[in-house]
């Protein structure tokens, strides 16, 4: 591919984000009709991705990208093979329909523009995820889907249930994302490559690596949380709090499949081991059964669909992990079929809700006459979901039985699981497609009639797609299923299954499934009651567990904060200075940087010792002073001693300043202390004093050793020499210190003046602001005025 084509692909990948920015403005002017314009973006992506078909179906891949963070070898790059292309087509194709559907479903909503924006952002994230090649690109897009799905689930943010569901999805999938990041980094360090395309041929090396198990578990953590595998399935049904277009798009057709995508993508790398072929079918099979059982129990159309989505994802994971070529083909076919029929059914459920005013299946009936187009679409999708001809779902189900059927007990167990799961899904599909439409007309909250074209276009197109792909299966296999299966299997794979059933075990199993399904359908109410009582008996579930987990998290962080931040200044100071002492002493001891024992200075003078001793006496007096006057005077003594030190060692400017400042400080301190009865002496118990004393001695010792060590090394005098040399010739000043302050470093001095000014203003403000906390004083004042008036 040339540079121009790569540039176009990059623009195509950014297109949803651009559309997301435009969406609010378009919606302001065009209202819900903006959907027609906005759906052009996904349509353009669809067409562009379709353009790769000749290359991809020939077994090649399209790749491109650019350097992102070159220091770490991180690239923004894409890799489009059969797997990525199919996903991209599903995302953009269904995306276009969903945008249209949202325009009809949320017509007149005050935040419609925002909604379009969010859903297009999500589309961009999801598209990037499935074409990403670089590990970091993949991870960034992965987390972006979590964040945008948080925004979409919490779209109706005024309801607590929405907020909870949004947070739950974010915590579960975001946490999984972190596991995935760790897994990807581990794969990086195991193989040294940072791109999926480079990782694919290194499967044998990865599988033989001692850290294989850890990497596998981390990657599975990411995939299972995103694809709602038991016991992390609970966030998906709760995500139904989102408006229906979101449920149809994110929680059936696309986002929840990200985990499956990841498993399929990494199948050639991580697959084909005992661990892979045990963990995946076990978790997938459990999820399949749990999901369908929970679905039976629901009466809300959306929740029924949500739980069947959970079970479909379980089925997909199970098939991906099964390892055989047929299983991969079955997974691929089922994934495509599921996206079509589930997206369609969700939109139908939304349309029913929108037109009839309720989603409760027990309160619906006889809508066939009022909503004929919707009914037709629903029926087609349900037939596909039930795995009956002539729809694409039939091909998928036949392939599943081809894949699973073998004589080993392991295979028989999973065949039974698949039969039960498929049978129950058939039940749900028909419960959804038949119950609301057939039978006597039931009074609904709203007078139902066919919705506008925006509402039924999506379901009809998807239903037709399910039909056409089945009729034209050789074409669909050539361009979609076979390239995708080849990418997943890591070798050339050709899918041949068609609508003409061959007599054999798979067909027999299909018949068993249908019979089982019909039997359950007839006793649906009893089955529902049975599952409900079973769940009631269990009581606790991961959904409750999530609440307990979040509460525990808040309590834990609260108690940790309480401990670390007790709200006591002295404790904070102790912690700070203990750290200072450690920072000073530990490196010196650790790296052997202690000063050598200093020799006694040769040129000592008596009066210098006298000054220092006076200063020490002042310090001790400050510590033990019992009354204010002693404390203040002692404080002055140590300050003047410091001023004298400056004087003795040839720093007259410092000395004068120090004398002045020290005098002023002592005077104002005395003023304040005599006006307020503050106690200078220590009232703390001895234990606390000893702790403080030890910390203080540690710091003092640290500073002392540090200073001795510093003065034992050579001093770099270049700056001082520069100032001394140029003070007079350049700045025309004889006092070098003054010249440095006002000339060489004049800007610093300006900063210093600013600090002093700000401090002055702050002091003035503090003294002037009188709070209104003293009503008594005001009352007395008012009383005084009253008295004067009386007089």
């Amino acid at each position, binding site marked *: 591919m040339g540079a121009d084509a790569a540039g176009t692909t990059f623009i195509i990948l950014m297109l949803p984000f651009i559309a997301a920015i435009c969406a609010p403005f378009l919606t302001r002017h065009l209202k819900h009709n903006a959907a027609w314009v906005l759906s052009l973006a996904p349509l353009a992506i669809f067409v562009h991705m379709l353009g790769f078909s000749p290359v991809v179906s020939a077994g090649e891949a399209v790749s491109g990208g650019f350097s992102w963070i070159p220091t770490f070898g991180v690239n923004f790059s894409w890799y489009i093979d059969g797997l990525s292309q199919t996903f991209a087509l599903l995302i953009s194709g269904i995306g276009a329909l969903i945008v249209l559907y949202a325009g009809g479903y949320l017509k007149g909503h005050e935040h419609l523009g925002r909604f379009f924006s969010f859903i297009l952002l999500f589309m961009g994230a999801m598209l990037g995820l499935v074409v990403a090649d670089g590990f970091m690109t993949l991870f960034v897009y992965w987390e972006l889907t979590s964040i945008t799905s948080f925004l979409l689930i919490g779209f109706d943010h005024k309801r*607590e249930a929405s*907020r909870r569901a949004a*947070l739950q999805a974010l915590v579960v999938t975001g946490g999984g994302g972190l596991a995935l990041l760790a897994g990807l980094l581990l794969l990086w360090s195991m193989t040294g490559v940072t791109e999926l395309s480079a990782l694919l041929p290194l499967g044998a090396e990865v599988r033989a690596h001692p850290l294989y198990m850890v990497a596998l578990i981390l990657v599975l953590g990411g995939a299972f949380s995103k694809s709602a595998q038991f016991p992390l399935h609970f966030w998906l049904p709760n995500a139904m709090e989102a408006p229906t277009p979101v449920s149809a798009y994110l929680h059936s057709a696309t986002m929840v499949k990200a985990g499956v995508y990841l498993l399929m993508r990494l199948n050639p790398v991580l697959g084909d081991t005992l661990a892979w072929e045990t963990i995946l079918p076990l978790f997938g099979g459990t999820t399949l059964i749990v999901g369908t059982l929970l679905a039976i129990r629901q009466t809300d159309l959306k929740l029924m669909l949500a739980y069947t989505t959970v079970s479909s994802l379980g089925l997909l994971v199970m098939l991906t992990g099964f390892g055989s070529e047929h299983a991969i083909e079955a997974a691929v076919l089922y994934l495509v079929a599921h996206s079509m029929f589930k997206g369609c059914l969700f939109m139908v459920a939304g349309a029913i809700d929108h037109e009839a005013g309720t989603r409760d299946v027990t309160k619906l009936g006889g809508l066939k006459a009022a909503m004929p187009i919707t009914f037709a679409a629903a029926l087609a999708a349900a037939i596909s979901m039930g795995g009956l001809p002539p729809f694409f779902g039939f091909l998928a189900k036949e392939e599943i039985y081809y894949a699973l059927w073998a004589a080993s007990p392991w295979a028989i167990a999973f065949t039974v699981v698949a039969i039960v799961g498929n049978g129950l899904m058939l039940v749900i599909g028909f419960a959804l497609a038949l119950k609301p439409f057939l039978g006597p007309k039931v009074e609904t909250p709203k007078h139902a009639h066919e919705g506008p074209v925006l509402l039924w276009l999506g379901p009809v197109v998807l239903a037709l797609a399910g039909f056409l792909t089945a009729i034209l299966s050789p074409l669909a296999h050539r361009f979609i299923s076979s390239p995708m299966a080849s990418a997943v299997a890591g070798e050339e794979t050709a899918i041949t299954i068609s609508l003409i059933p061959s007599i054999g075990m798979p067909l027999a199993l299909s018949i068993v499934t249908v019979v089982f399904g019909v039997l359950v359908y007839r006793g649906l109410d009893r089955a529902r009651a049975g599952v409900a009582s079973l769940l009631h008996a269990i009581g606790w579930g991961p959904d409750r567990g999530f609440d307990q987990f979040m509460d525990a998290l*808040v309590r834990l962080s609260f108690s940790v904060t309480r401990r670390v931040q007790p709200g006591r*200044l002295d404790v904070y100071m*102790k912690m700070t*200075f203990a750290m200072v002492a450690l920072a000073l002493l530990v490196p010196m001891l650790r790296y052997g940087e202690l000063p050598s024992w200093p020799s006694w200075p040769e040129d000592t003078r008596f009066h*210098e*010792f006298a000054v220092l001793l006076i*200063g020490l006496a002042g*310090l*001790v007096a400050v*510590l033990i002073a019992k009354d204010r006057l002693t404390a203040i005077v002692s404080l002055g003594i*140590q*300050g003047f001693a*410091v001023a004298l*030190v400056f004087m003795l060692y*040839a720093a007259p400017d*410092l000395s004068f*300043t*120090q004398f002045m*400042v020290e005098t002023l*400080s002592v005077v104002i*301190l005395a003023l304040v*202390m005599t006006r*307020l009865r*503050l*106690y*200078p002496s*220590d009232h703390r118990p001895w234990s606390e004093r000893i702790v*403080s004393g030890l*910390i*203080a*001695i540690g*710091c*003092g*010792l640290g*500073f*002392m050793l540090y*200073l*001795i060590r510093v*003065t034992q090394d050579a001093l770099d*005098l270049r700056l*001082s020499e520069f100032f*001394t040399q140029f*003070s007079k010739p350049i700045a025309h000043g*004889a*006092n*070098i*210190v003054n010249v440095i302050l006002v000339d060489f*470093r004049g800007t*610093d*001095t300006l900063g*210093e003046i600013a600090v*002093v000014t700000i*401090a002055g203003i702050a*002091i003035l403000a503090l*003294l002037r602001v009188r*709070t209104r*906390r003293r009503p008594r004083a005001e009352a007395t004042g008012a009383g005084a005025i009253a008295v004067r008036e009386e007089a």
Partner: protein
Amino acid sequence: MEPILAVFVGALFTVAIYLMMSRHTIRILMGVMIFGNAVNLLIFTAGRLTRDVPPIIPAALDVPEIATANPLPQALILTAIVISFSFFAFLLVLGFRAYQELDTDDSREMRLAEPKDDPLPPLGY
């Protein structure tokens, strides 16, 4: 003479830090004041000590004839003294106003920003 002054600096730091870990406003303030002196002397000593020759160039010359005291630390400290004074003045007024408003000079009883019986943050969503 530097090692001996280093011992003095260590003593200043010890007393200053001990006072700053106290609970009473006034002791903390005295600690802050001594701390400023300790830091200044630390910088001063690290720039080496020279007796009797301040960094001033005689009138007739462009550069001093003999080695003078190091002017750089002196310039730094001059700035530092003024800033630590304004800092001290601000803290003093802050402590004074806190005493007026809260009727206490014990930092443990100043719990306006971090109340003692802070309730658990709300659980739920």
